[in-house]
């Protein structure tokens, strides 16, 4: 319909402004903008001068009554904060634009130019911009005051313990924590005997950390609180919260004799099992039947048991003969082959053992292997006693040993390195303890090299000091497990960034 109508084009004429007489387009007020601005000031009654509190320690601004907002100068967060402070005023007018006007950083003044619109006279909308000045007053926020008063003061502590004689778990956990930034809010981290203590300024941070631990390790935790102060007037109670987290003593490569109840619940898993993997589930492998089972955290703690022999009791064996008995089985992602094997301890070549092992796929005559010497061990285990008529094998092999090849590489640096947490270490234990720690750490690094699945969850960084040309000249007969460069490449950018930062600091 509209297309067929002839519509006369309408052009707006110009009228004279009723006050100053300059020609202008007609508007509802029929005054030119200048005259209108002279008549009406829409910013009348709006605050042009505001005082805000600023904490110089943590660079945050107070939003009453209690929140402190962290913001940099001339940032989006600061602009949002400034406009929010004027919320009451801006209800009367409509805000169109807001921007910062540059002020000296140390002048303690922030200037914001706001453009507002309001309806005046008979329907004319007037737009006007005005400047609001914010005066920054220094005022320390509560957390900074508390921190200043006593920097060691913590509100929540998490005591992480594992009742074993080695620290392998804690090395691994340290790397996991670094990867997930779980201890980012920790005020202090302290290394203790058989564990680590984490201190937090906030109970919720501690709870979050305990939950994180529960996801990566089989833990049992309990919590407690202690009253520090009490304000009777407004019934405020200040507490110190403590969380006690215990990790199960079962570690990778441990030999375990399952209690009869647990063995039965897992479908009569042979009482001797090897622990292959520990996350928040414990993976148990029966080396003779190649059956793998998983124990949940709850399941473990219901009938908690200890391991029979740990990785410190591993003994080196020389392999003489291998007879493969079964085809290759894929158990939970890893391949195993049952084989009958002839071994002897390297300390005692006189005694040969014929045993069954699950490592038939990697052991060949002439190899070295690490295993548990049940023949020579004196087991004082209550669970073992419960099994009447159980025939113990003379040895159980756990893994292949690369010790000889490591001898060649002794002293040479690795191509990769790890970061570490900022921990307070107890220095009073003496030299022997330190040496033990170092050798355990070395063992942990070797573990990482040999097991790609362990490396999967961690971040490895390229070692700048490492020279690959030296390595190429050394010929290796058998391939020694080492971390391929591709796994480090992902972290290369990180280390470049780090180096870049270093150079900037210089």
């Amino acid at each position, binding site marked *: 319909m509209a297309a067929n109508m002839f519509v*006369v*084009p*309408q*052009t*707006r*004429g110009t*009228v*004279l*402004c*009723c*006050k*100053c*007489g300059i020609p202008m387009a*007609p508007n509802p*007020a*029929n*005054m030119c903008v200048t005259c209108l601005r002279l008549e009406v000031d829409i910013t009348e009654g709006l605050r042009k001068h505001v005082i805000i509190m600023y904490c110089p320690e943590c660079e945050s601004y107070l939003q009453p009554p209690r929140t402190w907002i962290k913001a940099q100068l001339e940032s989006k967060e600061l602009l949002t904060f400034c406009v929010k402070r004027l919320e009451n005023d801006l209800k009367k007018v409509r805000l169109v634009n807001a921007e910062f006007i540059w002020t000296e950083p140390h002048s303690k003044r922030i200037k914001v130019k706001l453009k507002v619109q309001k309806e005046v*006279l008979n329907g004319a909308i007037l737009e006007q911009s005005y400047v609001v000045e914010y005066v920054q007053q220094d005022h320390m926020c509560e957390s900074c005051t508390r921190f200043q008063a006593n920097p060691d003061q913590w509100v929540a502590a998490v005591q992480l313990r594992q009742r074993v004689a080695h620290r392998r778990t804690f090395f691994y956990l340290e790397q996991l924590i670094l990867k997930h930034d779980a201890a980012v809010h920790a005020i202090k981290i302290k290394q203790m005997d058989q564990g680590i203590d984490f201190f937090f300024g906030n109970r919720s941070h501690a709870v979050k950390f305990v939950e994180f631990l529960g996801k990566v390790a089989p833990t049992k935790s309990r919590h407690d609180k202690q009253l520090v102060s009490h304000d009777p007037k407004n019934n405020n109670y200040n507490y110190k919260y403590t969380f006690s987290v215990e990790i199960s003593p079962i570690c990778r490569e441990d030999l375990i004799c399952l209690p009869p109840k647990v063995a039965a619940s897992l479908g009569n898993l042979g009482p001797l099992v090897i622990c292959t993997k520990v996350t928040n589930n414990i993976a148990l492998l029966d080396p003779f039947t190649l059956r793998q089972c998983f124990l949940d955290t709850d399941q473990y703690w219901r009938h908690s048991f200890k391991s029979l022999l740990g990785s410190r009791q591993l003994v080196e064996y020389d392999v003489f003969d291998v007879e493969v008995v079964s085809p290759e089985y894929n158990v939970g992602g890893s391949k195993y082959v049952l084989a009958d094997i002839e071994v002897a301890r390297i300390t005692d070549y006189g005694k040969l053992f014929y045993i069954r092992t699950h490592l038939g796929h990697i052991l060949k005559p002439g190899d070295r292997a690490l295993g548990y010497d049940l023949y020579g061990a004196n087991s004082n285990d209550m669970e073992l006693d419960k099994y009447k008529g159980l025939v113990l094998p003379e040895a159980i092999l756990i893994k292949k040993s690369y010790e000889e090849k490591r001898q060649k590489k002794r002293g040479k640096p690795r191509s990769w390195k790890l970061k570490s947490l900022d921990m307070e270490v107890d220095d009073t234990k003496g030299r022997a303890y330190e040496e033990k720690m170092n050798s355990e750490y070395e063992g942990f690094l070797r573990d990482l090299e040999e097991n790609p699945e362990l490396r999967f969850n961690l971040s490895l960084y390229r070692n700048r000091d490492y020279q690959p040309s030296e390595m190429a000249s050394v010929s290796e007969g058998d391939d020694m497990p080492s971390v391929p460069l591709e796994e480090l490449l992902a972290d290369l950018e990180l280390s470049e960034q780090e180096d870049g930062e270093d150079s900037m600091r210089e």
Partner: protein
Amino acid sequence: MATRLMFENSCEVGVFSKLTNAYCLVAIGGSESFYSTFEAELADVIPVVKTSIAGTRIIGRLCAGNKNGLLLPHTTTDQELQHLRNSLPDQVVVQRVDERLSALGNCIACNDHVALTHTDLDRETEELIADVLGVEVFRQTIAGNILVGSYCAISNRGGLVHPHTSIEDLDELSTLLQVPLVAGTINRGSEVIAAGMVVNDWTAFCGADTTATELSVIESVFKLREAQPTAIVDEMRKSLIDSYV
């Protein structure tokens, strides 16, 4: 010559008075100063008549007229009608109109030759206007408003219309009315022109709020600067004498 005045603290002079080339009607107000301003300007030349229409003071908006006649709404009482017939000169035909739209001042804008009317006016009323006022009648709108009588003020020399009138509309109206037109405001930006001022061929009265700019626009478009009342009235006298003879 344009004069500024107020009626009882209101600047809407065109509501309370009606000015033509032959007579002037003034509302009965609280103070005499309104009437005396008109008297001072016009007494020697044309009669200034105090009246009410339908018992109200808003006479400017209720009646429409020019030198030939005066149209009153059907609500006018008989006494008022008689009073007006007695006070005005004999050649001015005073006629009561039976029309649904009774605010004739808002619906009809006229000078001595042309009239613009509300689009919904009755056919009989239109014929009556043509008869009584002796004008050519056109149904029009001004800047989209149908109350043509409120949004423009015209005399035989020029006209002032609503400020939002487009240029094409101005051209069209100007062709119809055969006078120069300008879009402007009155009383400091008010768009209701006819309510804010009354005008005839040699003088105009505006509300006190009218700014100097507006006043200069009015004086220039209605050509009031060089206007001499005597010259115009002499012309009228000639035609009067003609009728006697």
